[in-house]
C-alpha cells in the first residue's frame, strides 16, 4: 500500500508577476485589423472560424486607425504590458480612448436613433462589448488549448456548461440548445466530453470555447476523470483524444462551401494574405512584412506579391484625381522594389521630414491600397495614394500597367512633415 498521505500538496507558491498565457497572447496577436466594408456580420458568420480568428473586425467599422488601436490595446491588455502612460490598459481606459478616436474620426452612426446603441461604434455599450468579448475569447481560447493537452485532458476529460456570471435577463433556452447541439443532460446538468463536437455546435460563433453567445454569462467548468467516469461518460481508464488538431484541420476545410461572392470579398479584403484553392481558403499570415524580412535576409530573392484588386473606394478616389479607371487593377509588390525602398527609405533615409520605414510599416501598405485618404496623379502612369494611420502619414507611389492590369509599387515612405513629395 502506498502511503498516499505522504503526498503533501504543500508546495504551493504564489508570486506576483509571471507571463500571460502564450495561447491567449497568440489569440489576439495573430489578428490583422480588417475593415468591414465588404462583409457584414451575417457574411462573417459564413466565413471560416480560422479566418475570423485572424481578423480584427467589428461590424460596419471601416476605420483602420480605430481597428488598429483596438488591436493594439487588446494585445497590451492580454500581454500585461503597460501603455504609453505607464499604466495597465483596462476596460474603462479602453472605452474612453476608443470613444475619443471615434469622435475624432467622425464615425458616429448615420441614423441618429442608433446613437448610444450597439449599432454605434462610439457607444459605451458597443466598446465594452468589444473589450469583454475579445478578452474573454483570448482567455477561453487559452484554456481550451490547455484543456486539450493530452495529460490535462486525461485528468479532466469532461466539462459542464453552467452559469458563471450573473445576468439581469439570463437566456432560459440553454438546455434545449445544448441537447440540439448534441450534448447530454445528466442529472439536470449540461455535460459533455471536452473533445465533443457539441461545443462548437452550441456556439453561435462556431468555436468550442466560451463565449457561446453574445453577452452570455454561461461558461465551462472542468470535470475530473473520477466524476466523468461516475457519470458514465467514460469507462475506467478509457483514453480521450485531444481535438484541437482535428478542429484546426476542419477550420481550413470549412470554407469549401463559400460562394464566389464571398471568395471575392475575402480576396479583396486580404489579397495574398489568403490563398483560395478549390473553394478552400488558407491564411498566409502577414505576408508583406514576412516577405520584407526574407528580402533583407536573402539578397537574391525574386518574388512578387499581390494585395488584391482595387477597392471601390480606391477606384473612385483615383477617378476623382484624374487617374485612369483602376477597376479590376491588381496591386503588385516586387522584391526588387522592396530592396530599393529598404535602401532609400529604410537604412539610408536622408530626408529629415521622412521617417525610416520599418518592417511593421509594411503592414500598413494594404490599407493604403484598399482605403486611401487621398490620391494624387504625378505622371500619366504614376500616382500616389496617402493614408494617415495613427498620426503617421503613409505615402505610396504606383505605376499603372494597362497591359496586364496591374499597379506596381514604385516606392513607399512615411512623412513626419512637409509636402508629400520631395
Amino acid at each position, binding site marked *: 500500500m*502506498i*502511503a*498516499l498521505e*505522504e*503526498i*503533501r*500538496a*504543500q*508546495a*504551493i*507558491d*504564489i*508570486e*506576483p*508577476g*509571471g*507571463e*500571460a*498565457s*502564450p495561447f*491567449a497572447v497568440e489569440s489576439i496577436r495573430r489578428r490583422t485589423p480588417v475593415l468591414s466594408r465588404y462583409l457584414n456580420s451575417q457574411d462573417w458568420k459564413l466565413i471560416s472560424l480560422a479566418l475570423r480568428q485572424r481578423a480584427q473586425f467589428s461590424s460596419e467599422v471601416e476605420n483602420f486607425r480605430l481597428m488598429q488601436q483596438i488591436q493594439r490595446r487588446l494585445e497590451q491588455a*492580454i500581454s*500585461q504590458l503597460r*501603455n*504609453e*502612460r*505607464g*499604466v*495597465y490598459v*483596462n*476596460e*474603462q481606459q479602453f*472605452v*474612453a480612448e476608443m*470613444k*475619443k478616436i471615434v469622435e475624432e474620426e467622425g464615425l458616429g452612426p448615420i441614423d441618429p436613433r442608433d446613437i448610444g446603441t450597439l449599432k454605434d461604434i462610439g457607444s459605451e455599450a458597443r466598446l465594452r462589448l468589444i473589450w*469583454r468579448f475579445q*478578452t474573454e475569447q483570448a*482567455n477561453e481560447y*487559452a*484554456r481550451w488549448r*490547455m484543456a486539450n*493537452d493530452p*495529460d*490535462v485532458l*486525461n*485528468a*479532466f476529460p469532461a466539462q459542464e456548461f453552467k452559469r*458563471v*456570471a*450573473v445576468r439581469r435577463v439570463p437566456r432560459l433556452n440553454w438546455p434545449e440548445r445544448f441537447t440540439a447541439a448534441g450534448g447530454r443532460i445528466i442529472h439536470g446538468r449540461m455535460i459533455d466530453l471536452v473533445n465533443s463536437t457539441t461545443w462548437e455546435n452550441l456556439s453561435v460563433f462556431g468555436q468550442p470555447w466560451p463565449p457561446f453567445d453574445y453577452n452570455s*454569462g454561461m*461558461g465551462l*467548468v*472542468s470535470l*475530473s*476523470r*473520477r466524476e466523468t467516469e461516475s457519470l458514465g461518460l467514460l469507462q*475506467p*481508464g478509457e483514453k480521450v483524444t485531444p481535438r484541437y488538431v482535428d478542429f484546426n484541420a476542419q477550420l481550413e476545410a470549412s470554407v469549401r462551401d463559400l460562394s464566389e461572392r464571398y471568395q471575392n470579398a475575402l480576396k479583396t479584403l486580404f489579397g495574398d494574405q489568403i490563398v483560395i484553392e478549390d473553394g478552400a481558403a488558407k491564411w498566409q499570415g502577414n505576408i508583406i512584412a514576412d516577405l520584407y524580412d526574407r528580402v533583407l535576409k536573402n539578397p537574391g530573392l525574386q518574388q512578387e506579391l499581390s494585395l488584391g484588386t482595387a477597392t471601390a473606394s480606391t477606384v473612385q478616389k483615383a477617378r476623382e484625381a484624374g487617374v485612369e479607371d483602376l477597376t479590376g487593377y491588381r496591386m503588385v509588390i516586387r522584391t526588387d522594389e522592396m530592396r530599393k525602398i529598404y535602401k532609400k527609405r529604410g537604412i539610408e533615409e536622408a530626408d529629415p521630414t521622412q521617417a525610416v520605414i520599418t518592417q511593421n510599416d509594411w503592414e500598413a501598405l494594404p490599407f493604403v491600397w484598399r482605403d486611401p485618404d487621398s490620391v494624387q496623379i504625378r505622371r500619366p502612369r504614376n500616382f500616389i495614394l496617402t493614408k494617415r494611420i495613427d498620426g503617421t502619414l503613409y505615402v505610396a507611389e504606383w505605376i499603372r500597367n494597362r497591359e496586364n492590369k496591374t499597379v506596381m509599387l514604385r516606392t513607399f515612405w512615411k512623412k513626419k512633415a512637409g509636402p508629400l513629395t520631395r
Partner: protein
Amino acid sequence: MAVEIEVDLSDAIKGVEDLRSQLANRRALNAALGKRAEVELRAHFTDREQGPSKASSRGWPKQHFWAQIAQATTLTEVNDDGATVTINDPRFAQKVYGGTIKPGAGKKYLTIPAIAQAYGRSAQIIEGLKPIIRMIAGERRAVALGKGETVISKKGNPRLKPGTETIWYWLVKSVTQEPDPQALPPMDHLKEKLQDEAKEYLARP
C-alpha cells in the same frame, strides 16, 4: 502584473520510494494537479462573483469583477517539475497584495466614483463634468468632478454654482488599499483538494 500560482510536489514526495516508482510520468500528475488548482481557483472566484459586494450593497451596477478574474485564470504551464496557474489580470495582484495606486504619467489625480452612474466608467467619457474647487490648507485645489448649474467666476471661468453640484468623482492623489484576505481561497482548502487529486491520480488503474 499577473499572479502566478505554482504547484510543485517534488519536495513533498522526496524519500517516498514507493511513490517515486509510480511517478514515472510526473508531468501527468502535475497536469492533474495544475488543472485541479485552476478549477478550485475559478470556483472560488465564481462564488465571489455570485456573492455580495461593496458596490452591490450600495445599489451600484455590477461590474462582474470576479467573473473576469475567473475568466483570466488559466493553467499556463505543465512540466515534470510542476504546474503553473496564472491569473492574468493586474487588478487581481492589487487584491492579493494591496498597495498604493498613483495616477499614471501626465495625470494629477485618480478619480474615485461617488455615485452609481460613475461606477465602472472613466470620467473621460462623461460629458459636462466640471472640477469642484475647495480651499485646502490655504491652497485651492480640485477635490471632485461633478455636474450642476454653471456660473461664470470673477475670472471668467465656468464653475459649478455652490449648492447645485452633484459629485460624480472624488479626486485623490493616491489610494492605498489593504490586501483582500479572501482574494484567494483558503490555502488549507486548496491543499486538501490537491491532495485528493493526487490520491485519485495514484489510485487509477
